[in-house]
């Protein structure tokens, strides 16, 4: 078998950076981690910078005059710069640190949307949204009498452009959509969706939870209005995510959470807000986590997002090919050219939970369930799928193990 991996980047060197890959699930059974879509593993560079922060520089940030406070502030703001440059934001001020993608989307729903949308206004989503890009809008729609419409997924598992154009004719105010489905792997044509939205006078929010870790995402060339993503899915720590926004939007938005740091001056009955991004970062933020996030972004940038996307693409092609060989296995999702490194499948006569548990016995970590996309599963008349997903530290050997494991499942359920 040809091994094209070296030409993109040195996978073995990458693997050596991830301490958990040396883990044995049981004695003699090594870990085969195929659940990066849920959360990615962390390289020692990310783990170490947080460890060192706590051992050497830990302090609360902003306003502190002492050495530790200044170090901590500089490290935190460096994290912001690193993440900003990763998505090619014009200014680091456009990067608001949140807990995760979910909070980022809710932030927009609670601020921009509440300030700008009124009863009868329409928001367009897609059928393949993660609950995080669905429930905030359901909550808002209930509270404000908004109308939600959904771009269907085509029979080929793609974003339905024709249906989208029809919805645009109804003059929606916001298009909030995923850049990559965490179930189907479908990559949406974000640049075109955004361009059409702007032509129709709508703003756009891109759920980049799956795309920012796996594809080159350039906010300026996309011209996107808001982008949400999480550190933990891109080799960074838990507890921190980002809302990117265009500066005039962020500046005009009312604050979300009230508290320390988001203020300029405070009296007992009135206050004025601090400048962007601090206006949206109330209270002590996830300091160590933002520092780790910056290093994670740099780690990926050093490998190169083009190389990562190409590498994953090859692995996805290979995985789809191998899975297609297995009788009784059905993969949901488009062909590899439109797809990120995700393979969600069902097996005749075996529940996804059983598949996952039997695979786990051989150290193969996959996820089983609705993957926080119940409506999409409902569309296909199923309640759950088994999902294997790939990242920079996975290899074809991992795919082979998966396939072997699936044959074992078939044997057991004979």
């Amino acid at each position, binding site marked *: 078998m040809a091994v094209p991996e070296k030409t993109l980047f040195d996978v073995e060197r990458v693997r050596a950076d991830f301490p958990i890959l040396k883990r044995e699930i049981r004695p003699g059974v090594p870990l085969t981690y195929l659940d990066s879509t849920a959360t990615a593993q962390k390289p020692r560079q990310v783990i170490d910078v947080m460890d060192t922060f706590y051992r050497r520089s830990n302090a609360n940030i902003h306003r502190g005059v002492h050495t530790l406070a200044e170090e901590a502030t500089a490290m935190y703001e460096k994290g912001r710069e690193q993440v900003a440059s990763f998505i090619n934001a014009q200014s680091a001020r456009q990067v608001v640190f949140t807990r995760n993608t979910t909070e980022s989307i809710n932030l927009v729903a609670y601020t921009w949307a509440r300030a700008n949308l009124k009863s009868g206004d329409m928001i367009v989503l897609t059928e393949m949204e993660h609950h995080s890009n669905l429930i905030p809008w359901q909550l808002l729609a209930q509270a404000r009498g908004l109308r939600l419409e959904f771009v269907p997924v085509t029979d080929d598992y793609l974003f339905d452009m024709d249906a989208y154009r029809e919805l645009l004719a109804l003059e929606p105010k916001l298009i909030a959509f995923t850049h990559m489905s965490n179930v189907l792997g479908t990559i949406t044509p974000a640049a075109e969706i955004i361009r059409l939205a702007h032509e129709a006078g709508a703003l756009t929010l891109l759920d980049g939870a799956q795309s920012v870790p796996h594809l080159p995402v350039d906010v300026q060339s996309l011209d996107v209005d808001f982008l949400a993503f999480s550190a933990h899915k891109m080799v960074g720590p838990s507890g921190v995510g980002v809302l990117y926004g265009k500066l005039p939007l962020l500046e005009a938005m009312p604050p979300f959470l009230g508290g320390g740091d988001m203020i300029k001056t405070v009296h007992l009955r009135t206050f004025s807000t601090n400048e962007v991004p601090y206006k949206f970062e109330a209270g002590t933020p996830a300091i160590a986590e933002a520092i780790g996030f910056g290093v994670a972004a740099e780690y990926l940038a050093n490998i190169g997002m083009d190389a990562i996307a190409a590498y994953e693409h090859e692995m996805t092609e290979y995985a789809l090919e191998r899975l297609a060989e297995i009788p009784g296995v059905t993969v949901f999702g488009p062909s590899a050219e439109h797809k990120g490194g995700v393979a969600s499948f069902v097996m005749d006569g*075996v*529940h*996804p*939970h*059983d598949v996952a*548990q*039997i695979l786990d*016995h051989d150290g193969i970590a996959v996820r*089983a*369930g*609705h993957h926080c996309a119940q409506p999409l599963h409902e569309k296909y008349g199923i*309640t*759950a799928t088994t999902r294997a997903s790939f990242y920079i530290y996975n290899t074809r050997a991992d795919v082979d193990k998966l396939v072997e494991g699936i044959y*074992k499942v078939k044997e*057991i*359920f*004979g």
Partner: protein
Amino acid sequence: MDDLYREIIIERYKTPHYRGHLDPHDIFFEDDNPVCGDHIEITVRTDEDDRVTEAAFDGHGCAISQASADLLIESIHGKTLDEVKALTKDDVLELLGIELGPVRLKCALLSLKVLKAGAYGLGADEVSDELVE
């Protein structure tokens, strides 16, 4: 692999002995595990001493949830409702004969939860994991 999916689990999953719906019945209850979509309903007939004379389950889901339902139903024939109410997690695990992590435990215990909720005559809103702790 034996410690994971014993023969009996696969066998009962594939050809359950007590799948069905009893009509008429004295007890009916159903619930599901939203995490994986497992669904179990249970129908039970009792005699004048509140002793189980016949019972059946229906539903769909993973091997663990379906096999444990089948084995559990088998085990309650001839028991009084008080004895059914006294059943615990450990009884089900003994029937299955395997160890399970917390997520799969929920699959395994769904049928017990449904059964006990039925035995206690609870409303749909009153079911909770505490029933099977």
